[in-house]
């Protein structure tokens, strides 16, 4: 379980984005974080990843207070996350190389040894076999995101954080990757937290939708959306209704 306890965060410039913010995220649930730009969506993700430290309060993951990035938490960003000078395969291997580089110092190394064969498995599972020797600039945006996903899943994470992962992709590629992400979420028993500015994507991806508005945020506004796990959810009336409901809520929310 991920717990945010009395979490506050303030940018160095002084803007307070979260103030005494509490949130509980169950294992193997899927969350979409929705809100306008500047509402602190990405900051929330960075706080949960451990890359950023809260000004006060705690992030607790499975009972342990987070003090640095946790190897079992995967983070996928919209762009620029891949090493431009390394091939697809080298990028997918990166996490394991970093482990090896550190050795068993206990600080960053995981408890278990992950075999290199994992790399082959994920390369082929995500259809990257044929392009594994290409560098990121020579593959499509969708393939780049698949590479980023493979790189994360190689490390056998339990939490997957995604920051607008599909925003720069064309519609068919986006649909394919959304579907793939849901499959992987289910199959790998992941806890998924996906940040997006698209209402449709939030409704499609999250069992829970966390709605953020202009900062600072004190109380979470959570919309239950359990139907998101239905096959072909986006073709149902419930989906359409939920999108409409959310759009109204966001307009209402912004008026305040």
């Amino acid at each position, binding site marked *: 379980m991920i717990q945010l306890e009395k979490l506050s965060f303030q940018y160095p410039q002084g803007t307070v984005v979260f103030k005494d913010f509490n949130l509980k995220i169950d294992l193997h649930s899927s969350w979409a974080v929705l809100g306008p730009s500047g509402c602190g969506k990405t900051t929330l993700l960075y706080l949960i990843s451990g890359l950023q430290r809260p000004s006060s309060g705690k992030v607790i993951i499975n009972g342990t207070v987070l003090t640095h990035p946790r190897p079992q938490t995967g983070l996928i960003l919209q762009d*620029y996350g891949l*090493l431009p000078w390394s091939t697809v395969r080298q990028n997918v291997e990166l996490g394991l190389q*970093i482990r090896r580089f550190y050795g068993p110092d206990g600080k960053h190394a995981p408890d278990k040894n992950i075999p290199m064969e994992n790399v082959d498995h994920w390369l082929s599972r995500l259809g990257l076999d044929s392009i594994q020797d290409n560098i990121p*600039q020579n593959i499509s945006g969708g393939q780049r995101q698949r590479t980023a996903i493979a790189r994360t899943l190689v490390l056998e994470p339990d939490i997957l954080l995604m920051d607008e992962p599909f925003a720069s992709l064309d519609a068919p590629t986006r649909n394919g990757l959304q579907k793939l992400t849901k499959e992987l979420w289910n199959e790998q028993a992941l806890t998924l937290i996906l940040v997006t500015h698209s209402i449709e994507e939030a409704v499609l991806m999250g069992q829970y939708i966390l709605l953020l508005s202009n900062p600072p945020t004190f109380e979470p506004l959570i919309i239950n959306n359990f139907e998101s796990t239905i096959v072909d959810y986006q073709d149902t009336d419930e989906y359409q209704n939920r999108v409409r409901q959310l759009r109204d809520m966001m307009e209402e929310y912004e008026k305040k």
Partner: protein
Amino acid sequence: MKKSDLIYAILVLLLTWQLAAFIINRPILPYPSEVIRALIDETFNGELTGHFLASFYRVIVSTLVAILTAAPIGIILGQSRRLNRRLTPIVYILYPVPKVVFVPIVLLFFGIGNFPKIVIIYIILFFQILVLVRDQAANIHPELIQSVRSLGAGRRALFKFVYYPASLPAILTALRQSVGTAVAVLYIAELFATTKGLGYYIYLNGSTLFDFPAMYAGIVVLSIMGLGLYFSVDWFEKRYYSWKFIR
């Protein structure tokens, strides 16, 4: 550059030289054939090889030390805004100062031998590499650093997997830009307080012994050394990074 281009360029230059020597018709500009003869003679029977090795050693050592010191400092400056704010004004003022003018001072400080020559070339390369690497390191996308950190990378792993490969192109660009300068400065540094090196050799034959073919042989060797360094950087660049952008 293709091999045929290289041969073409050399032929054109040799022909121009030949023609110029024919028109001027004085000992101060000998024919290419005379110079090549002197080059062979000086290499096998004279001391040209020794002078070449002395110069080559000075350039290589100063270049290596410059890379090993300037690149890490450049990376640190590029990544630490606070340090960069403190040091940038100083670098900014020192960067355009023509360091060649310090040759006599460096010689006075460090005396004769290899050390002062290495120091002076080092100073020039150091600033070139520092500035380029710093700018490149400052341009690394924060997203890239964050996502590699999220995989569990600490400072050492970040250096190995991100900062070092990201800075390599800047180091190579700096080297490419400064090879010419380094060789020119080498020549000037070798005019003083030494009896070894191509600079000394060229000056001795041109101004004291008036052995013009030998002097030109020295110039040819110095040029070949510069070209060789330039081609090495090119080769290294093609071999080790085929990607063209860092964003």
